[in-house]
């Protein structure tokens, strides 16, 4: 599996969730390949309903993967305005195309300017992702 981290995305450094600002308010989110490597193939996924408010660093859904069940942590605060129905019915799409058809949800975030300061993007992505790859290999999350 290749671990690619596009510099135009914003990454939650701890939980490996990516963000793509699509307008001043709308942020598309998904799980990055390293986050998926630690989980294994996704079998089930649930997301909080459309219209619900989520808080940065707090659960916004749950998942069951080959290796465990766990919570999906919101990378930024906001309101869920769209959920990807395709991945809710076929979570394996997230493993197949984590940056494409496997996106999870769109948030309307008024706190993006503040919350995004906690995320890594642009030129900083390479150094961060290299460190993470090293850490994941040392801990046996990936080969």
């Amino acid at each position, binding site marked *: 599996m290749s671990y690619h981290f596009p510099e135009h995305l914003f990454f939650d450094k701890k939980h490996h969730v990516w963000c793509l600002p699509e307008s001043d308010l709308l942020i598309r989110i998904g799980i990055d390949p390293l986050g998926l490597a*630690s989980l294994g*193939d996704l*079998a*089930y*996924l*649930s997301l909080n309903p459309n219209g619900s408010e989520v808080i940065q*660093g*707090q*659960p916004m859904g*749950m998942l*069951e993967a*080959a*290796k*465990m*069940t*766990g*919570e999906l*942590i919101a990378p930024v605060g906001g309101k869920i305005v769209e959920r990807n*129905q395709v991945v*809710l*019915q*076929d*979570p*394996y799409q997230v493993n197949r195309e984590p940056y494409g058809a496997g996106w999870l949800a769109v948030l309307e975030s008024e706190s993006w300017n503040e919350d995004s300061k906690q995320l890594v993007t642009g030129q900083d992505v390479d150094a961060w992702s290299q460190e993470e790859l090293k850490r994941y290999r040392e*801990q*046996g*999350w990936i080969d």
Partner: protein
Amino acid sequence: MQWRYICEDRVSDSFGLAADEAMALRVGEKLSPSVLRLYTYRSCSALVGRFQRIENELNLDFCREQKMSVNRRPTGGGAILMGEDQLGVALMLRDWNGYKTPRELMRHFASSLCEGLLIFGIKAQFRGKNDLEVEGRKIGGLGIHSNASGGYLLHCSLLVDLDVPLMLRALNVPVEKLEARQLQSIEGRITSVRRELKKDSSLNEVRDTMRRAFSSYFAVEFEQSCYSPEEKKAIGEMESSRYLKKDWIYQKVDVPDLSGEARQMTPAGLLDVRVTMAGRQIKAVFLGGDFFAEESAVSDIEGSLRWHSSESEQIRRTLELLYAKREEELAFLPIENVCEVISKAVESARAISQDSTVGYGCFVNPKIGDAEPVHT
């Protein structure tokens, strides 16, 4: 190092589940050291996995008639029956000895359980996503749940004993269609501490042995412990906001449950494969029909494909590893035939593409209609 030890008996389903999850959260938040909780549920509680469809998995009418409580676990896997003869083993921790990944923690958790069983002379091993087995017969179901605070809940339902006919009636298995031979086949793939030891060991004896095994394996001292007032409050809040709520217990799941079947003649005889799937993921495979192969090797095939990708290449890769180990016992059952018929069963499940009503139990493989048992 000192960990907490909590011992409880005959807890309600909602309290039992809430205490596991609330304590794992507090351990993650560093409000408590690691906790080992060895406990039993009030007989009986039928508990489905985190994302299972309860109406597909449980015979709710039977559960109601028998006054069995039903609930939903935070951990994944299949439906289980918990009562006074099943030991709940819950370990809540953030990390241990530098190990922080779920895979590593699960391996050590399973190893400590195996060491505990070995004290009784029972040689168990961990396999697949969540199986603790003795020579291919399942004796425990394991699960792991991670939370936002960085805590892990590792859980095992360890069979000190099990009323198999009761379990089959509580789970949504078409039991009226099961003949004696088929019941025997299911019972042949499950075991318990009492069955292995051929004596009536008490649950407390098993519990005390497990506590000692965990202490030795993890090199920790256990401090007998009760819940603090803050912990009781957190557990109460978890119970009332989740495990007593119908919204949680009967929640809908978007991923469809599918089932399919396929048959093929092989040099070993007729191979009849049934699969149940969660979307694209195989939940379980059952190999039936009329063929010659070592029963434990057949159980190994089934065990290695529980919660497995349904992609043909990945199935083939897994089976190649298994065949390399059990070449002799599977000599008359060519891997090509097994891969092909499993793939056809997967295709048939996808083609049918509608919700199955066939349940997947933690301790029972899928049986559909008139599926025949394996002849060895």
